[in-house]
């Protein structure tokens, strides 16, 4: 159980949740959030948005019943939290493009923050594509070298993959697939974070199994971050 210190609406159906406690985790990892004790039954996987001192933040969108109930929670109430789970983004070097589409932006904040602080990183260029409105407009700039965003268009058009040492992406399949293809052409590594419906969240139930170039993998344990070519180049 974790204490909610804040849960505010920051966009159309989009919320920023803050909980208090001593949490661990690295960028791209996620927590399983149990919204209520009994109903709904399963926990929801939500990425780490930001992790500082004794605060952990999640950025989420109301996608169905579970996230709707989560959005009704107020500061002072508690939720169940298990994690961090998953592998998270790998360590990279040089000039990095970080590309997000829609709620795929969620894990990229902490990702950029850590990259920016890292001695091996020369630049962190953040590209975010939104369909309706930009959220947290003033926050993103603080955690990257340059920030580019687009509303309603195709963010991939603006990313010159050849110019980077590696690309870290999270967003719609079509976006990540495109980046993977371009990356492959230019011999660049593209890492993608994929979604799957989860039961256990820890690798025991095979609900989240996905076919990869290297056989079946579990999104919750072996992922959610994979090399793009493992997933899209089958």
């Amino acid at each position, binding site marked *: 159980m974790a204490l909610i210190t804040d849960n505010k609406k920051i966009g159309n159906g989009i919320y920023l949740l803050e909980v208090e406690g001593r949490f661990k985790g690295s960028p791209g990892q996620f927590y399983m959030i149990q919204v209520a004790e009994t109903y709904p*039954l399963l926990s929801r996987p939500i990425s780490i948005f930001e992790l500082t001192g004794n605060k952990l933040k999640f950025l989420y969108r109301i996608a169905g019943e579970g996230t709707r109930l989560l959005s009704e929670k107020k500061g002072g109430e508690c939720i169940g939290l298990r994690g961090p789970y998953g592998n998270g983004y790998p360590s990279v070097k040089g000039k990095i493009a970080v590309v997000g589409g829609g709620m795929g932006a969620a894990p990229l904040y902490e990702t950029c923050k850590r990259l920016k602080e890292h001695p091996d990183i020369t630049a962190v260029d953040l590209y975010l594509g939104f369909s309706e409105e930009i959220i947290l407009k003033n926050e993103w700039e603080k955690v990257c070298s340059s920030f580019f965003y687009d509303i309603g268009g195709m963010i991939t058009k603006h990313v010159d993959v050849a110019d980077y040492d590696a690309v870290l992406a999270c967003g719609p399949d079509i976006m990540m697939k495109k980046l993977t293809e371009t990356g492959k052409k230019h011999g660049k590594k593209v890492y993608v974070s994929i979604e799957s419906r989860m039961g*256990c969240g*820890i690798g*025991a*139930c*095979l609900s*989240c*199994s996905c*076919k990869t170039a290297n056989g079946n993998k579990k999104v919750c344990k072996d992922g959610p971050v994979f090399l793009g070519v493992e997933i899209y180049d089958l």
Partner: protein
Amino acid sequence: MTCDLSVKFNYLDFKNPVVAASGTFGFGEEYSRIYDVGILGGICTKGLTLEPKEGNNGIRLWETPMGVLNSIGMENPGIEAFIKNELPKMKKWDTRIIANIGGAAEEEYILASEMLNNADLDMIELNISCPNVREGCMAFGMKEKSAGELVEKIKHTSRHPVIVKLTPNAENIVRVAEACEAAGADGISLINTVKAMAVDIKERKAVFENIYAGLSGPAIKPIALRMVHEVCKAVSIPVIGIGGIMNWKDAMEFIMAGAHLIQIGTANFVNPEAGKKIVSGMKDYMEKEGIKNLDEIRGII
């Protein structure tokens, strides 16, 4: 007062009645990082088949009102890899190991059970109840004849005690149970998931590639409890109650309905420590109520 949670299941002693259900606990490794799984009465392995299986495509899990639909389709490393890679790890824990085996054809079951003969296991759970594979498996569990015949053959080949896991989709689950008993089964476990379905109205199609999937969780508990009660009244071999057990109260309901052991499946997803909590919850309850041994209340209804 000292309460004894141990259960005599035929000639086998279980330290307590709480067993992890097949397919929801992997081979125990992941949960062993969360608590000492050696405190459980037993662990059923993920459903094993003769050859490795990749499982089903598409969405594999879907939440329903207090239930979960799954269509894993028996993804597993195959019996050989199980014996080589998983079983040795499982042997480190002080708990009973039950190998759950499935198959598309009689021959597969027989070969699988033969391969397990030299493995250091406590029991085999014959899964004739998985609704998520196109061929075999649940087909054997639908009628007493096919079930009985298969059980008889496995009892001939296997040197391990054989329990048979029944499907709620059977034409008459009581008669299937009786046929298994007559064929020599050492016990019955029930229920596997209920054949069910989900529709994605946005996409205007079935959620699962196989259209139908298996329903588990609290939603099915009242159905499971009824079937366990019916089967317990009908057979004299011991029964393992399964279906929607989330806490020690649910577990006690199944014991009162006549079950010797209980298995917890979906509960492991809801709270990975469910098994541990149910063991301690049952113990506390027995102490409070002055129940020395579960025999005192088993089948009281």
